[in-house]
């Protein structure tokens, strides 16, 4: 499932004056479309964000800061970052390899592989968590052996790492595949003919051209790991300060009636994502401008 196809380096769209030649009536249609789009976007996505931010700052900046610096909150953030640190690079390497393989080559079973890579997006996070409980839980075939060697997988960091990795496995691959497919292979072939080795080809020709899609994929993968709730809550033992990632910590805060603190922690994730995304757009804009100036 080509979920999350790359949000492209958005080319400068035609400005509103594209067809002012037409009488007002047609432009009216354009403004109505704009109104529908913006109001739908704000209603469905903007308002929830607003609620989160409003609740987060309801009791003022002081309590906001306090909520974020609480010991458990910091512990949860560190764990989330640790998990992201252990998951995102792996999924990125995998994403690059898979997208390169599926984008540049045609072989038997290619479609099956594409479908398989999409699967985690369609699988309910709860099922993802359940899978790992069945695989490494005490009642699983591996259970007794793991217990004997005191290897704790679920209800400890490895379990959280595995389920987060599973849920966000396709994000980088999904982002790169459409781009690599559309780019075809002329440049790589040309470079290969000029004697570039596999790595040189990849490093100097292919990588620069997919830089933005790759960055976007990494940002999404990272945001998703930090924000994963369903799968992690099944495999995490909810041990305070030890196996509680940020989303789980938010749930605890919520269940202890500390609503402002819960939203404060949530707002961190929202800010993180929005800022990285806008930053990417800005950097991209400079890049394309610089490129067009020098071209």
């Amino acid at each position, binding site marked *: 499932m080509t979920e999350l196809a790359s949000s492209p380096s958005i080319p400068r769209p035609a400005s509103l004056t594209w067809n002012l030649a037409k009488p007002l009536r047609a432009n009216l249609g354009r403004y109505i479309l704009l109104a529908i789009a913006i109001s739908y976007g704000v209603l469905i996505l903007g308002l929830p964000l607003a609620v989160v931010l409003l609740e987060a700052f309801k009791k003022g900046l002081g309590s906001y800061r306090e909520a974020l610096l609480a010991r458990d909150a*910091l*512990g949860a*953030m*560190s*764990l989330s*970052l*640790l998990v992201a640190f252990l998951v995102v690079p792996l999924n990125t390497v995998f994403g690059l390899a898979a997208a390169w393989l599926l984008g540049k080559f045609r072989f038997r079973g290619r479609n099956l592989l594409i479908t398989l890579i999409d699967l985690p997006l369609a699988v309910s996070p709860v099922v993802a968590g359940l899978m790992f*409980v069945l695989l*490494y*839980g*005490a*009642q699983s075939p591996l*259970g007794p052996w*793991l*217990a004997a060697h*005191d*290897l*704790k*997988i*679920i*209800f*400890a*960091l490895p379990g959280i790492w595995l389920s987060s990795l599973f849920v966000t496995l396709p994000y980088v691959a999904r982002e790169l595949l459409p781009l690599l497919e559309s780019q075809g292979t002329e440049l790589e072939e040309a470079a290969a003919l000029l004697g570039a080795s596999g790595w040189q080809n990849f490093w100097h020709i292919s990588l620069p051209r997919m830089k933005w899609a790759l960055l976007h994929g990494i940002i999404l993968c990272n945001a998703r790991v930090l924000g994963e709730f369903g799968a992690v809550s099944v495999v995490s*033992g*909810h*041990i*305070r*300060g*030890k*196996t509680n990632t940020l989303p789980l910590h938010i749930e*605890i805060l*919520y*269940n*202890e*009636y500390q*609503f402002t603190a819960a939203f404060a922690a949530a707002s961190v994730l929202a800010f993180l994502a929005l800022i990285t995304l806008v930053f990417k757009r800005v950097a991209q804009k400079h890049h394309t401008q610089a490129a067009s100036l020098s071209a």
Partner: protein
Amino acid sequence: MFPTRRLAVLALGLILGSPLAPAKTLLNASYDPTRELYRDINKEFLSDWKQKTGESLEIEQSHGGSGKQARAIIDGLEADVATLALAYDIDVLADKGLLSPNWQERLPNKGAPYTSTIVFLVRKGNPKGIKDWNDLIKADVGVVTPNPKTGGGARWNYLAAWGYALKQKGGNELKAKAFVQELYKHVKVLDSGARGATTSFAERGVGDVLLTWENEAFLALNELGADRFEIVVPSVSILAEPVVAVVDRVATKHGTQKQAEAYLSYLYTEKAQDIIARHGFRPRSPKVAQAYAERFKKVSLFTIDELFGGWRAAQKKHFDEGGLFDQIYGASS
């Protein structure tokens, strides 16, 4: 900007597992409403234990739905002690060989150092005039209670209602089922746990009355504002007995058997009973009960053994697949 040193220690501790952790740690897998209780109890016990034995112990807490925690322990959560909402959830641990089946004999009061009961929480001024169980099925009353399939407290709520109907004049199984069925028709939201239900009622203004643990009701009053809600104690209710037990297999593996047993027996001490009462749980010790008499109103309480023949029978008859609860929901919607 995150303290990297802290990150490293955390990672190290997690990856290498507890044996290398400096001090011995006890993991207490508990259900939702005891978060605040065990925060205070643990502080007291640890300092008390340090004086007695000089060993600096650590206690980690894990909270969640009672059933969910029991499942987690079965699936490998290495909890040294389990302090859950109802005996059935620990029986299940015993069935899986995690502790001996006669766990209830090893601690006083059959392993229930504190009790509670099921009460109603209503909006300030009791707008719908709810006095007892029968008011719950009045036409315009919206009821909020967690899902008996997942919540421990939810099952006490269900059994309390069932018990009430049975104890009315001429009450019988059929009438009780009709009453409970009617009650659940009034339920607008079925959260998975007690805390979720309280939040739906208090924070999101769902329904008119919340069925909850007495201790949760007290907590809701001082956390969410005594000016917004008030407690209504029904004429009759069930003696809710949350239970505690050492998870032998895990404790022996961690070599924390001694500490675990001391931790649980500490719950029966005067000092602990006082903390328990302060957190809205009904203490076992008569002296402390006397001191908090005015807080815990008199209410005639029936036990699960009296009316339902114990938890295993109740679970089988009411909550298992195709049990009475399923039938109630089968018919009601």
